[in-house]
């Protein structure tokens, strides 16, 4: 590519016009009080977009039990291997449920692959982003914590507690 260099006059070559122009631009920004972009964080918060990927949660199904069927696809796809699932049998229709479901938030990279790969839409990355802690062991979220983070759906009419496992 041919770069054409503009022929500068001697006055332009002293840098003064460019310097003065730059100084005028920076000065003109000082009185623009209305245009300040600073967000004073703890008090004012950013409106999160609906697709925001924050801390993962586990959803509870309409029957009151966790939706997860312990297929382990998320465990398999997770790039930093932050998810660990121990499966167990259940007499519910889904036949399989997670006995333990741990996500190490110290490893999680918020890629959202688990959410994308989940066949039953049980795991979601929601809008929580303040997870700092002084102890790394607190950053391993177990199944109860993950379920508690997810909002419970309203139970079906006439049912106030989770569906019992048939014996």
């Amino acid at each position, binding site marked *: 590519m041919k770069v054409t260099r503009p022929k500068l006059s001697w006055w332009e070559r002293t840098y003064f016009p460019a*310097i003065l122009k*730059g*100084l005028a*631009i*920076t*000065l003109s*920004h*000082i009185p*623009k009080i209305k*245009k*300040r*972009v*600073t967000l*004073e964080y703890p008090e004012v918060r950013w409106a999160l977009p609906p697709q925001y990927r924050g801390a993962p949660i586990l959803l509870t199904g309409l029957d009151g039990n966790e939706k997860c069927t312990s297929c382990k696809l998320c465990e398999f796809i997770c790039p930093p291997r932050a998810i660990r699932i121990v499966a167990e049998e259940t007499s519910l229709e889904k036949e399989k449920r997670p006995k333990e479901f741990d996500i190490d938030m110290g490893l999680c990279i918020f890629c959202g692959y688990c959410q994308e790969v989940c066949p039953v839409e049980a795991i979601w990355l929601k809008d929580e982003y303040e997870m700092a802690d002084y102890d790394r062991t607190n950053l391993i979220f177990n199944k109860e914590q993950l379920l508690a983070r997810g909002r419970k759906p309203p139970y079906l009419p006439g049912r106030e507690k989770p569906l019992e496992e048939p014996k």
Partner: protein
Amino acid sequence: MTGIWAIVIPAFVKILVIIAVVMTGVAYTTLAERKVSAWMQDRKGPNRAGPFGLLQPVADGIKFFFKEDITPKEAYRPIYLLAPLLTLFPALITFAVIPFGTSVTVAGQTYPLAIAPGMNLGIVYLLAISSMSVYGILLAGWSSGSKYSLMGALRGASQVISYELGIGLAVLSIVLWTGTFDFNAIVADQTGGWGKVWFFIPHFLAFVVFTVSIFAETNRLPFDLPEGESEIVGGYHTEYSGLRFAMFFMGEYANMITASAFVVLLFFGGWNLPFVRYEWFGPLWGGLLSMVVFFSKIAVCLFIFIWVRWTLPRFRYDQLMTLGWRRLFPLAVLNFVLVATWLLLRGRP
């Protein structure tokens, strides 16, 4: 109050006032730097510590106190510990010769507003001491035992030495014009009477050379190569932390205040304002007013320092040397020759 005390006590009071004003000035210049830069970038700047962030310098000071003071293993300890002092100390003692007002009369005694009043070699002293600040940079960089520090120190030394020529020649043309090294006489020459204007008008060339050179002398952007963050980490103070780093920091800002005072005295009529005579306000209030005017002018200069810093990008090293040696130095020589020729042919107007 007789004998030696009549000299020592006023001098001591003046030193206290100057140290207080300069150190407060340094603290609030750092805040102004952050605030102005924020406004120029459409941000709000520090506003948590106190109203409008006015206590931010205090918070910064406390933070510096509690930071760990680290000496690298490779550092040469005696010089490593000495270098921050060598930066801050010259920056502060330059104020010994800078007159900061006319004079005040208290209880029948008249005190000139300068720590060393009537020093008739003030400019020479100021140039000599401000050149010493390069030792702080050089020794800090060398004794840190770090390649980044060493590079920063080398750049700093060559830059300060190169641009001192410009400063020296610009000042020399003023000295030639006024025929004195005394700040009071130079200030008096710029005001009060027909044809006496602030020197930045008749000596515009010297003013430009001098201003550009003090930006380099105080290591401010666009000439902050000794501490160019994006190239050599922190430059000569890479290895310093805690209060020792704070000393470099304060030294830089104190140098800015000294340089601003220098500009104001040489080119902007010192503490004088056009069409205003301090005799109108009486011997005490006139003196205090002159002091306020002088420090206000310094504040304007400091704002320009900050303004330029947040506008212009950094020079490349060869551009810096080209500007110093091939543009400013010939300009300064030309200006000096012009002034000398004028004086020879026409004399003082």
